[in-house]
């Protein structure tokens, strides 16, 4: 028999935003056994899906689109989650606890979770609806780009961040000519040490990408046959397809208008360790949320799949009054140019880096891990094709134990044994 989720006359949990965080929170509430009605609404028409494949398997068409959905379609009915697609909340009255929808309807909520995510940062000269111009944030965006790439063409990617690099890699994999432009002097400048940026740039070039680094846009002209982009160094690139990937703007308009506190630096909705906002019974999770992070030691807004899931679990536990899940080491992955790159922690120029393994060649296999430490404590690790090795380091990151990082470069020993030794040495002290 299906459980009943009509618990008394309590008002529903309203989840605004049906992406990774929203869909995960809804299912987590049920898993905890929370009996109250749940309404999960989102502006998009697709059921909640995972975004990481949009720039990868969805573009290269190797992935069955059906496999990207977060939950099986039957889950919403089975778990009595009222999924309302194409439903946009336009305002909140946090005193009366009313949410107003764009169709004029309103509901009274008991708790409200804002998982509104964000939108692609726009370049005004390259508007979203201009011919040949693409942004990649939604499944619909990815489908439109995929159909623009059905015939062989030249693709200009603006932005050398993770998304831009993944799109460039996917387009090149499909045989297109690809130019990638980044305004910073090196790729992933804020995420990687310089040596790794250089490796990645060489890898991209080997893969067939034309790279333009340290180049800014001067002007744009959009014509029927394609988009012409003039750069400040005097060069010009003309391409029928332009993909703009210059970051994300958190979607916090609803929260701001409702009077929630917004972090002035990162633009996210300020939440505490329990994902509670500055207003009672309103919570936030995912790309739109700014939270004190115990690993980083400061308030951050993280745009990652892991963070969306983790904050969703925390918000669900808070709403249901159950035990909070434990903190996680910030983790991120990207797949590009045949490399799976996974990262723990974050880059700081002052870290001391050592290398375990060797640079993977452009043709053959190979794997390596870069370890960045400060005074013998691991703060950053980047694994190339070595996710399993990265994972071995988790206890050292979690507990911020000191270790001799140089010892980890010994490839005669499996990393697992070396980590065990480091853990033993810490236990003895």
């Amino acid at each position, binding site marked *: 028999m299906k459980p009943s989720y009509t618990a008394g006359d309590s008002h529903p949990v309203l989840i605004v935003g049906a992406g990774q965080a929203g869909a995960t929170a809804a299912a987590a509430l049920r898993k905890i056994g929370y009996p109250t009605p749940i309404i999960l609404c989102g502006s998009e028409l697709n059921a909640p899906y*995972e975004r*990481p494949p949009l720039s990868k*398997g969805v573009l290269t068409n190797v992935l069955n689109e059906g*496999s990207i959905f977060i939950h099986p379609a039957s889950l919403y009915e089975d778990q009595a989650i009222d999924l309302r697609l194409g439903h946009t909340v336009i305002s909140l009255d946090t005193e009366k606890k009313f949410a107003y929808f764009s169709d004029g309807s309103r509901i009274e909520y008991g708790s409200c979770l804002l998982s509104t995510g964000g939108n692609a940062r726009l370049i005004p000269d390259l508007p979203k609806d201009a011919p040949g111009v693409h942004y990649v944030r939604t499944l619909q965006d990815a489908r439109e780009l995929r159909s623009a790439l059905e015939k062989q063409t030249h693709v200009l990617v603006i932005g050398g961040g993770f998304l831009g690099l993944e799109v460039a890699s996917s387009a090149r994999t499909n045989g297109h000519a690809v130019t990638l432009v980044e305004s910073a002097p090196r790729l992933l400048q804020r995420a990687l040490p310089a040596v790794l940026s250089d490796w990645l740039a060489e890898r991209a070039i080997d893969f067939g990408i034309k790279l333009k680094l340290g180049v800014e846009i001067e002007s744009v002209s959009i014509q029927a046959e394609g988009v012409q982009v003039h750069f400040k160094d005097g060069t010009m690139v003309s391409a029928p397809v332009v993909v703009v990937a210059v970051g994300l703007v958190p979607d916090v308009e609803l929260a701001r208008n409702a009077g929630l506190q917004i972090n002035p630096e990162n633009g996210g909705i300020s939440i505490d360790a329990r994902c509670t906002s500055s207003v009672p019974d309103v919570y936030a999770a995912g790309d739109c949320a700014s939270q004190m992070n115990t690993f980083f030691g400061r308030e951050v807004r993280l745009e990652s799949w892991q963070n969306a899931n983790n904050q969703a679990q925390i918000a669900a536990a808070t709403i249901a009054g159950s035990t909070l899940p434990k903190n996680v080491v910030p983790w991120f992955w990207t797949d590009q140019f045949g490399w799976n790159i996974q990262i723990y922690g974050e880059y700081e120029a002052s870290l001391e880096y050592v290398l375990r393994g060797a640079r993977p060649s452009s043709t053959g296999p190979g794997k390596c891990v870069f370890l960045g430490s400060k005074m013998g404590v691991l703060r950053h690790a980047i694994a190339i094709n*070595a*996710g*399993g090795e990265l*994972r*071995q380091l988790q206890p050292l990151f979690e507990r911020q134990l000191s270790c001799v990082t140089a010892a980890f470069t010994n490839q005669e020993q499996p990393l697992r044994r070396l980590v065990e030794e480091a853990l033993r040495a810490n236990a003895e002290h």
Partner: protein
Amino acid sequence: MTWLHVANSDQLQEGDVISVSVENKTIAIYQHLGKYYATDNICTHQYALLSDGYFEDGCIECPLHQARFDVRTGQALCAPATKDLQTFPTMLEGSQILLKIE
């Protein structure tokens, strides 16, 4: 199907995972609490060898995206994997690890 000799017990210690090839399939063999288990070595989410992953408490974590499976049952335990792994019966005969492919 007959039992096939796929590995020897000295090839893996407690908590280890190795990869073997049997009849054009790549299979992961695990040792957990003194017992041997075998699963398909390819993650059900995307192409990755689970034997390159992280094995702990009877669960294998994919090296690509940290999907986790219970190697005793093949059950997919967390996102992004939703499909279970195929498992195979194993037995130890002397020092030989035997496996049966259905």
